[in-house]
């Protein structure tokens, strides 16, 4: 029996979460959603996940903070974390990489490329 790959999408925009949910669910992924970094941490404290996809600019706890918090402990040290953002600066990309992100995807995303990236990093 195969288990579905479970993805947590973290974005403060309900419209973006809906697009992600549609694109990923259509390809057979089990998708959960959180509206910012703190909501993601709350959800991850109680649930298991295979891949995290997070925005950068969010209230309360942004994507950088989320990645740093996840990498602090042992439970999510190797968890694939993809950043999906409108940011295009090399400085912010380098910051995400230093914080422990697995990959960097620039919006507007291409559903096929996103799915291919998720399949590649999921393990």
């Amino acid at each position, binding site marked *: 029996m195969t288990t579905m790959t479970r993805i947590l999408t973290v974005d403060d*925009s309900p*419209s973006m979460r809906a*697009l992600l949910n549609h694109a990923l669910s259509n390809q057979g992924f089990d998708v959960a959603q959180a509206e910012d970094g703190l909501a993601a941490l709350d959800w991850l404290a109680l649930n298991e996940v295979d891949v995290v996809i997070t925005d950068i600019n969010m209230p309360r706890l942004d994507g950088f903070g989320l990645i740093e918090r996840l990498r602090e402990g042992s439970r999510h040290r190797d968890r694939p974390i*993809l950043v999906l953002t409108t940011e295009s600066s090399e400085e912010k990309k380098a910051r995400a990489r230093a914080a422990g992100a697995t990959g960097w995807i*620039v*919006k507007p995303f291409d559903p096929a*490329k996103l799915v291919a990236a998720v399949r590649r990093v999921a393990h």
Partner: protein
Amino acid sequence: MFEHRIVPDGVPAPERITVMQGQALVSAAPQAELSTVLGSCVALCLFDPEARLGGMNHFLLAEPPVGVSGDTVDEFYGTYLMELLVNQMLAKGARKSRLRAHLYGGANVNRNMMRIGSANADFARRFVHREGIELVRSDLGGSNARRVDFRPASGQVRCRTVEDRFAPPVQPTSRPAKATGDVELF
């Protein structure tokens, strides 16, 4: 560049800034006035009354790319364009929960583009509703071009019907070639 004029009573005249198709501009300057002329295009004006800050975009979305079904416009690109405006507002001190929205445009001025104008208006309404942003005024659809003047620091908006010749014919904005959602794995 902006034009600085002083009217006779000593009050500085507005600094009119034209928002072109595909642009999103945000300002807190008291004299700034964001202006645009809309035919089938749609403009979203956002205002944060506490931060005294506003912004406007101007867009006409194309049909979705091949392989993306179920939508009448390219919602992936449209949501991205809207997010750019919202992010600019937040970066300058606005709070999303305080944002108030105005929507204008989406007229069916050109028979050949009737469907795309209405589809853009529908997309904009859906976006504002989904984001939980209060829509305080909308003037969408119909068959006439509109001129919108928005004072971003006060939230005042004036929307007037204008002759169609003032709204230059435009083509829907397809996502730029570089905006292909490229993935870089570290």
